[in-house]
């Protein structure tokens, strides 16, 4: 008889365990939420989810520095509507599933007053969906790809000068304005399979194809590609006059090194993002001759907001801010402008929809210049074009902002 006890007891303990787990699940998760519920009268809590670990952790940390610097600056200058700004940040590990859960938590459990966006297009879309479902305004620093604006979000605003397709707009105009005989005749494209990176390269491709420049290679590689030798071999084999890379950072470096290994010498080489990073020159062994890149931000821009930002940031960190930091700061500025104008910052749907309406109708002065948006949240300005000249990266387009002449054809690398 005793033997029958063991299995029954084990079944029962299993059941109790499950029940206990179910109850503690609800209560402990609730407890940790209730403890830190924020948003009293004396402060404005802004909820953010950022990729502090995982694939996007490097730019994620740049965005984080930008947001933190902005909040500090605002609080040093009397806060928003006289209330202090507090940032509530969560790490989404660069995962789309986490990012949705994070905003769900920020809005419901932390009851934040405002939310602002994460990094990368892939994370922006699921996050914007949650914000929209709860009626929140959603200004974001990093979702530039065309897809973001085709989902019908009414609450979304991209806080940078231009969407990905338009990053090379000035370069395309410049190339097509060259006399027919000097112009490059063929172009090779290689792009990461990423909405942002691909958007930049294909924006240029569409414009150049329309202008009669023939596409001789069009390669797409997945985000984690590390071996670029075969892509480089195909590009080099076409002997295209110009090469365009829709790159993030490391893939751009790898592709350039692989092209150099094959001794391919184009007349023009343009890569997004990578050439603007500080470590770029060292990473490709200083063979930077004439490489072109678009940028949405420069510390040298003479808007008063920007000079204040650069001064404040340099005092804090001892170095100049980069594009990620500037985009986060811009996001803060955009939200702040709306809050000051409609004089509210609460989770309440009325307040949030007033903020959204205001941004659709107005222009905001920011560190990247005045920004305004179309009805889908697309910003209406343009990116500058930079080029590596004599070991330094300089603005070459538009001509009124240029620090150096546009060099074409580029010297051998």
């Amino acid at each position, binding site marked *: 008889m005793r033997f029958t006890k063991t299995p029954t007891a084990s079944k029962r303990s299993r059941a109790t365990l*499950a029940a206990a787990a179910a109850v503690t699940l*609800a209560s402990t998760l609730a407890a940790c939420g209730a403890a830190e519920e924020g948003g009293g009268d004396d402060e404005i809590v802004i909820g953010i989810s950022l990729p502090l670990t995982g694939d996007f952790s490097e730019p994620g940390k740049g965005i984080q520095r930008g947001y933190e610097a902005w909040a500090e600056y605002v609080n040093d200058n009397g806060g928003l509507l006289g209330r202090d700004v507090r940032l509530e940040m969560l790490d989404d590990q660069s995962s789309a599933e986490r990012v949705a859960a994070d905003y769900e938590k920020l809005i419901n459990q932390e009851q934040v007053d405002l939310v602002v966006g994460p990094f990368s297009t892939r994370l922006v879309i699921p996050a914007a969906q949650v914000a929209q479902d709860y009626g929140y305004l959603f200004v974001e620093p990093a979702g530039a790809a065309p897809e973001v604006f085709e989902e019908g979000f009414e609450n979304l605003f991209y806080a940078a000068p231009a969407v990905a397709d338009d990053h090379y707009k000035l370069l395309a105009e410049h190339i097509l304005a060259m006399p027919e005989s000097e112009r490059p005749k063929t172009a090779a494209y290689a792009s990461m399979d990423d909405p942002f990176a691909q958007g930049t390269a294909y924006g240029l491709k569409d414009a150049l194809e329309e202008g009669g420049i023939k596409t001789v290679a069009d390669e797409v590689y*997945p985000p984690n590609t590390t071996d670029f030798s075969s892509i480089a071999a195909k590009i080099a084999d076409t002997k295209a006059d110009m090469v365009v890379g829709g790159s993030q950072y490391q893939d751009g470096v790898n592709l350039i090194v692989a092209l150099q290994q094959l001794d391919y010498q184009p007349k023009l080489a343009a890569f997004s993002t990578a050439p603007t990073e500080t470590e770029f020159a060292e990473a490709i062994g200083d063979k930077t001759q004439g490489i072109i890149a678009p940028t949405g931000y420069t510390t040298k821009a003479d808007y008063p907001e920007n000079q204040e930002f650069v001064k404040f940031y340099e005092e804090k960190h001892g170095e100049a801010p980069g594009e990620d930091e500037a985009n986060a700061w811009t996001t803060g500025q955009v939200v702040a402008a709306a809050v000051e104008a409609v004089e509210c910052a609460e989770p309440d749907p009325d307040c949030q929809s007033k903020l959204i309406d205001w941004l659709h109708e107005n222009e905001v002065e920011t560190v990247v210049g005045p920004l305004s948006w179309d009805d889908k949240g697309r910003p209406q300005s343009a990116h500058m074009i930079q080029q590596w000249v004599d070991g330094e990266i300089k603005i070459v387009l538009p001509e009124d902002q240029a620090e150096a002449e546009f060099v074409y054809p580029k010297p051998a690398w």
Partner: protein
Amino acid sequence: MLSASRHKTATHQAGRTSQGRSVLLTKLVVAAVLLGLVLAFPALAPDPFILSVGVVIASYAALAVAWNFVGGLTGYISLGHAAYSGLGGYGTALLVTEAGVNPWVSMVVAAVLVGLAAVPIGIASLRVRGASFVIVSIALVLILLLVAQSWAEVTGGSNGLRVPRPFGTDVLRPEQHERFFYLFVALTLVALVLWWVIDRSRLGTGLKAIREDEDKAQALGVPTFAYKLVVFVVSAFMTAMAGGMYALWFGSLDPIFQFSILTGSYLVLMSLLGGVRSLLGPVVGAVIVGYAVEFFKNQYGDSQMHLVALGVLLALVVLFMPDGVIPWVSAQLGRFRPGDTSIREVDAAQLAEERKALEEAKS
């Protein structure tokens, strides 16, 4: 050792008739209470975030039970079940967006298609023994990840695929969570009933014979290959159902997260933790692991240490309690009961097996 266990089962047989009814009654009461608690969860959850965590855990439970058709009944461990849930999700999404089929019909149709696709995969990987099965299971996830990323015209590539809501826009987000919570619980129950039926059937007996010693089972005339294939297909079908339901709930699919080896390994950990040989083991494992993941994220968030923790946990389970944590714990507790300490060459799980086999022999 043999004689000892035979003696035990004999004693156990004698005790059974008087105790049988009350045991069954206790089981039923416990099950009813448990189910009641689960069903009351949405009402108890203090805010929609916790409700959404509940939905994730319920989806894990459905997936883990679906995994356990192969893992528990045959002993073949698949690290690649994310392949079937991902296919279910993408299939559902594509049927809804491209063909305009009703979302729920899409979910079932997609799962049936995945079940059909599992037939050739099963034939390739089950003809030989475990090693090839594992290799194929991992390879399948990796190949599907490549395809989902590259075949952008259909899958949306790395941009992902958006799935429209199955409920109208007037159904607010918290209410969506609640409905999906019940849907996942219902799916889990269906899977549990199916597992229980197979477990009791002739098919189940044959499968367990394969699990214990495939050579002997084959020699005794069990059609091992056919049996393995049947549960493999059932498992793929149920996994795809859960994957499709997840796609409808979450609303967007990203290849990296749909076809992830990590998701598959979470399912393995859940089932092993709860005990692959028992009906409710995977459910218990899903609740523990799902809750632990959420808890550690809350407490320690910002580091890669969660991978290390998962690895260490998995290694500990494999090395010290391959039959599951709960069977192990109850065996350890059982050791301290008077009279139960003297003869323990056979552990509780093995005893349970013998008992089941005897029952089946009688019926």
